[in-house]
């Protein structure tokens, strides 16, 4: 039995006519007066414009599943969350929820500036659906978590913003919902706050509860969610394993996939000397892949054709992350390649990126073939292919037990040494003094 079952869900919003979301009485009266002659004329009323923020949405979530929800702005993610948390009613369809729903959107909802920390814990807790005795039972834990015990009887208007957020989050963190909704909106908080949210998500899912995670942060989605739903224009476009759905989403946005072929020579990148035929991302097992484990090597393979003899050509790859940051460039260092003129024919060049080298997230690869002397670029295909680097939490990568984001365009596994280098300075000095005296 699912913990969330959504069937044929639709939500319609009326737009037009109303400029403001709420009307004035005068407008309503005027409209009513206008409607009278229209009624007499046998209802020649023009139907008001409306949009479907959600349409025919259906999915099922099992207890304990962590589901990512992705999509462009305006795809219906927020509306879906609002309907799921019962803030707004659906226009059609049906949802079955098993258990209490809580959302980390609600952090601090109902906090009153004039009330003390203690009073706000009770007020906020009850607004978020906690029972009074439940709040009393967890009160000490909440206070300890928020680290505000000294200011418990101070009005929250005197709190620093950090204390305020900590207290608000502490209450939310002690809810024990069967279904937790985490919206990326919360990512406005500072890094430690975001981390707390992610930790909470993990904890919740480990206890067999369900998590819905809405984010634009694709690495976080692939890291934390087993399954992802892609929404577009209010509809479910894709629903499946996260790396697959995320890959598909990025493909639709970037127009880039894990492999590409140019069958029409006229359209292929290149000049009269050389022409690109195909590029693909491959594993050691020679499979084309759009997602690789961060610990595994990944190969970028290009096929090209040299059309005229007499030129040395160096294949090279340009790596960018999803923010467009130039991560690095790599070209074939083989002197044969660098200096020896090539014979006419087809070539295949593969570069292997070792495991534990890239950072997690999307890597976009530009593919080029150049001659160094004289400098000529035969072709440079930007955004030729792309792939996901996935750092799952169960792994033994550099991440360890840390669940948050790790910045940086690469994350190489380096050789580290740590040695014991003797007593601390202070002790050495004392020892010397003892010797001198």
């Amino acid at each position, binding site marked *: 039995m699912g913990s969330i079952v959504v069937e044929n869900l639709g939500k319609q*919003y009326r737009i037009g006519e109303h400029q403001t*979301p*709420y*009307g*004035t*009485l*005068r407008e*309503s009266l005027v409209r009513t007066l206008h409607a009278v002659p229209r009624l007499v004329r046998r209802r020649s009323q023009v139907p008001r414009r409306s949009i479907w923020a959600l349409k025919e949405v259906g999915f099922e979530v099992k207890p304990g599943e962590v589901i990512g929800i992705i999509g462009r702005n305006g795809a219906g993610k927020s509306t879906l969350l*609002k*309907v*799921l*948390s*019962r*803030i*707004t*009613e*659906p*226009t*059609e*369809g*049906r*949802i*079955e*929820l*098993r*258990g*209490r*729903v809580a*959302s980390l*959107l*609600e952090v601090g*909802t*109902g906090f*009153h500036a*004039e*009330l003390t920390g203690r*009073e706000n814990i*009770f*007020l906020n807790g*009850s*607004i*978020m*659906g906690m*029972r*009074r005795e*439940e709040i009393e039972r967890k009160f000490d834990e909440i206070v300890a978590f928020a680290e505000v015990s000294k200011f418990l009887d101070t009005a929250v208007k005197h709190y620093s913003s950090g204390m305020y957020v900590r207290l608000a989050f502490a209450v939310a963190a002690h809810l*024990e*919902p*069967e279904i937790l909704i985490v919206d990326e909106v919360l990512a406005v908080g500072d890094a430690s706050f975001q981390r707390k949210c992610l930790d909470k998500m993990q904890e919740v899912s480990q*206890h*067999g*509860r369900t998590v819905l995670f809405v984010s634009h942060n694709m690495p976080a989605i692939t890291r934390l969610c087993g399954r992802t739903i892609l929404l577009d224009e209010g509809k479910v476009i894709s629903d499946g394993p996260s790396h697959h759905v995320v890959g598909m989403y990025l493909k639709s946005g970037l127009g880039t996939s894990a492999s590409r072929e140019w069958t029409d020579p006229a359209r292929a990148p290149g000049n009269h000397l050389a022409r690109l035929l195909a590029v693909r991302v491959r594993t050691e097992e020679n499979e084309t892949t759009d997602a690789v484990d961060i610990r595994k090597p990944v190969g970028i393979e290009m096929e090209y054709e040299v059309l005229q003899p007499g030129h040395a050509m160096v294949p090279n790859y340009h790596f960018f992350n999803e923010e467009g940051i130039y991560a690095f460039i790599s070209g074939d260092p083989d002197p044969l390649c660098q200096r020896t003129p090539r014979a006419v024919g087809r070539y295949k060049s593969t570069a292997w990126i070792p495991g534990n080298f890239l950072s997690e997230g999307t890597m976009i690869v530009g593919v080029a073939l150049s001659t160094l002397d004289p400098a000529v670029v035969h072709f440079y295909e930007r955004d030729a292919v792309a792939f996901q680097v996935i750092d799952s939490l169960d792994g033994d990568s550099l991440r360890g037990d840390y669940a948050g984001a790790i910045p940086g365009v690469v994350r190489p596994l380096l050789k580290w040494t740590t040695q014991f280098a003797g007593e601390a300075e202070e002790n050495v000095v004392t020892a010397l003094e003892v010797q001198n005296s």
Partner: protein
Amino acid sequence: MSAIDVGKRGHQTSADESPAGKPERPLPEGPLQEGPLVVIEPSKSWVPLDLRDIWTYRELLYFLVWRDVKVRYKQTLLGATWAIIQPLFAMLIFTLFFGRLAGIKSDGVPYALFAYAGLLPWTFFSNAITNSGNSLVGSANLITKVYFPRIVIPAAAVMAGLVDFFFAFLTLIALMFYYRVPPSISLLALPGLVLLTAALALAVGMWMSALNVKYRDIRYALPFLIQLWMFASPIIYPSSLVPAKWRWLMSLNPLSGIVEGYRASLFNLPLDWRALGVSALLTLVALAYSLFTFKRMERKFADII
């Protein structure tokens, strides 16, 4: 899981199934426990009042009342004294102008006491409909973020007013001592009258609060309406002042029967049962209408607020 644990769990399940098992909601503690099933669907055109839902959220109602009272008394210098000052000063002014200068009759009770007995329910009533009328708009941040039966917001605003009412009532007792008006057995009708006043305030306040979400005009119309309503009710004058042939019109105002009821109960005057009956009936009708309107509009609050 050990065999003992399994046995325990099995035993508990059978106990829960027996008719003697308590129908309590399961606590959301264990990972394996299933929570209550919630079904979300577009509501039907005829909307029943979901009393069970409101019962589930009774603690929220309590906390919202508690918040309103706390905040009101915390922010002000005089705190609870305001609950007394408001009707007391109104009483002094009306006593001066209407009692002394205009010489309005007051059914044999000293005019000051007479006026206070009318101002007591009126202050409660007018504050309650003002506060609850503006309550939904003032709670937009809750409505757009969390689910709960929206009705608890205007209801809490009305109930918070009862605390003020209590303080103002203590002053009334002092005044009765001062004027040596002895209490009588008819005082027993007072709780019923308070309930009726609260019900009427809820009916009007809830309706206004829902309209306020859609039409912000209400914010401006409400004080005006309240002013008119005060003079249309026997607050500072007795119903007996109205010519007999217009009394029926007066009784269409549900508040008039209620206010006269307060005086009859406090000062042991003859009670106009018919007028009170009409008031009670009108209050029930208004409450029912208001509930249905509120329920119908409730669905769109989050979208338009």
